[in-house]
């Protein structure tokens, strides 16, 4: 037979629940207080470090970085050391020239290189990534072989930092990671890497050509951006061959690149391919003709304006003609066409947008 719940049992249950609620509230309060204290500490540390770094930068003295007793004392705590490291990394992104050398001197003076190497042994991916980032940004060449050991690491954050390190330490040759890259190279990572490559070694177009055949679309897009940055004209024939083989973004990126490394054949070749291109790419071609002063393609543009059934293409053609100083043609055309003709609407729209 089941035992009935007594008043005593009920009281006991309520008491247990109250104790649990009390413990929960107490835990929450302790946690909030700790978070508040940490945040207050961080703010205090930030102000101290900002002021210290600002003085070091303004003084411009690389050889004589002061060892502030307070900062040395605080550096005994791992939390502060990591905070200091983060502040230095973000400061290094703000300054170049002598100021950047000063920040590197601070990094070594306060033994933050040791802290960065320690982070490489962490089991947490974000800490490893931070260690690689610090050693790269602070140009610790001796760390490069160790960083290369993380090339196969199973975390994207770490891999991004390894890629960045390879380019920072090894320049163009560091791009070797593109050979077998399976993961997507994000737009931000592309920008970061592109910005780090300061020079393009002569006779490297074979390597670029190889990457243009990659099965990874983000690698192709990155290489196209590189061709634009360094204006690598010898790849023009290769890009023309690639044009019909791709669709979507790669195709429009190829067109953008062709306009940057334009030859006397580019415009005619693009006109020949025009009907096979996607709508977005067709717009890119017409826009490019307007910007690149394609005076020899006026008839083609006029034909697109009058006969292309796509309204959007008509608008782009009208704008390109406007850019090529064909305003009178557009106005005359607008006057001769019937008011209900759809081209008139397009012309008015294009002219209004430009004027």
């Amino acid at each position, binding site marked *: 037979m089941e035992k009935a719940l007594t008043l005593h049992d009920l009281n006991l249950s309520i008491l247990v629940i109250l104790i649990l609620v009390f413990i929960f509230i107490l835990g929450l309060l302790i946690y909030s207080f700790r978070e508040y204290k940490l945040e207050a500490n961080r703010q205090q540390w*930030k102000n101290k470090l*900002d*002021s210290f*770094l*600002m003085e070091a*930068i*303004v003084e*411009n003295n690389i050889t004589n970085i002061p060892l502030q007793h307070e900062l040395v004392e605080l550096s005994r705590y791992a939390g502060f050391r990591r905070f200091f490291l983060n502040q230095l990394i973000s*400061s*290094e*992104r*703000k*300054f*170049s*020239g*002598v*100021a*950047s050398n000063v920040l590197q001197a601070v990094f070594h003076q306060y033994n933050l290189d040791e802290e960065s190497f320690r982070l490489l042994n962490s089991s947490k991916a974000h800490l490893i990534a931070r260690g690689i980032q610090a050693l790269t940004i602070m140009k610790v060449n001796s760390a490069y072989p160790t960083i290369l050991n993380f090339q196969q690491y199973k975390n994207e954050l770490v891999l991004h930092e390894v890629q960045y390190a390879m380019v920072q330490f090894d320049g163009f040759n560091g791009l070797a990671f593109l050979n077998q890259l399976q993961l997507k190279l994000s737009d931000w990572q592309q*920008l970061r890497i592109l*910005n780090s490559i300061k020079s393009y070694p002569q006779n490297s177009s074979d390597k670029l050509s190889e990457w243009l055949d990659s099965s990874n679309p983000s690698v192709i897009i990155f290489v196209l951006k590189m061709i634009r940055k360094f204006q690598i004209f010898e790849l023009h024939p290769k890009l023309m061959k690639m044009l019909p083989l791709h669709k979507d973004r790669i195709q429009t990126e190829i067109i953008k690149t062709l306009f940057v490394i334009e030859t006397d054949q580019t415009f005619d070749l693009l006109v020949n391919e025009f009907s096979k291109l996607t709508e977005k790419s067709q717009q890119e071609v017409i826009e490019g003709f307007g910007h690149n002063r394609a005076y020899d393609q006026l008839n083609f543009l006029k034909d697109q304006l009058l006969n292309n059934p796509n309204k959007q293409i008509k608008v782009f053609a009208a704008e390109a003609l406007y850019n090529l100083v064909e305003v009178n043609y557009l106005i005359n055309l607008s006057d001769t066409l019937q008011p209900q003709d759809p081209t008139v609407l397009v012309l008015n729209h294009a002219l209004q947008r430009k004027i």
Partner: protein
Amino acid sequence: MIALLAEDDELILKTIEHKLKKEGFSVTLTRNGLEAIELLKKENFDLIISDIMMPFASGIEILAELKALKKEIPVLMLSSMGQEEIVLEAFDLGASDFMIKPFSPNELIIRINRLLKIK
């Protein structure tokens, strides 16, 4: 010489402020674009240094306001990488020069002195 310095990054703000003071400038600081616009309406400056991306109003809006106020003051813009299109817009609106972060504070001072000489 009075300079208006608009920048929301504390370290950059303080570093440029000290560099400018060393050069003999009197510096008015602001950490947001809207306040910079208000200051421009009320006070006269010989030079403006402004970040492009700032809270409440961007460096571009500061330039537009300057144009509306018909004040001809040299403006040096600071921008981050990847903001090339905005930089072109800034030049269209009358920016005199720009520097991309990371930038050298020493070079900034050289550029400022050159700007003021041209003026």
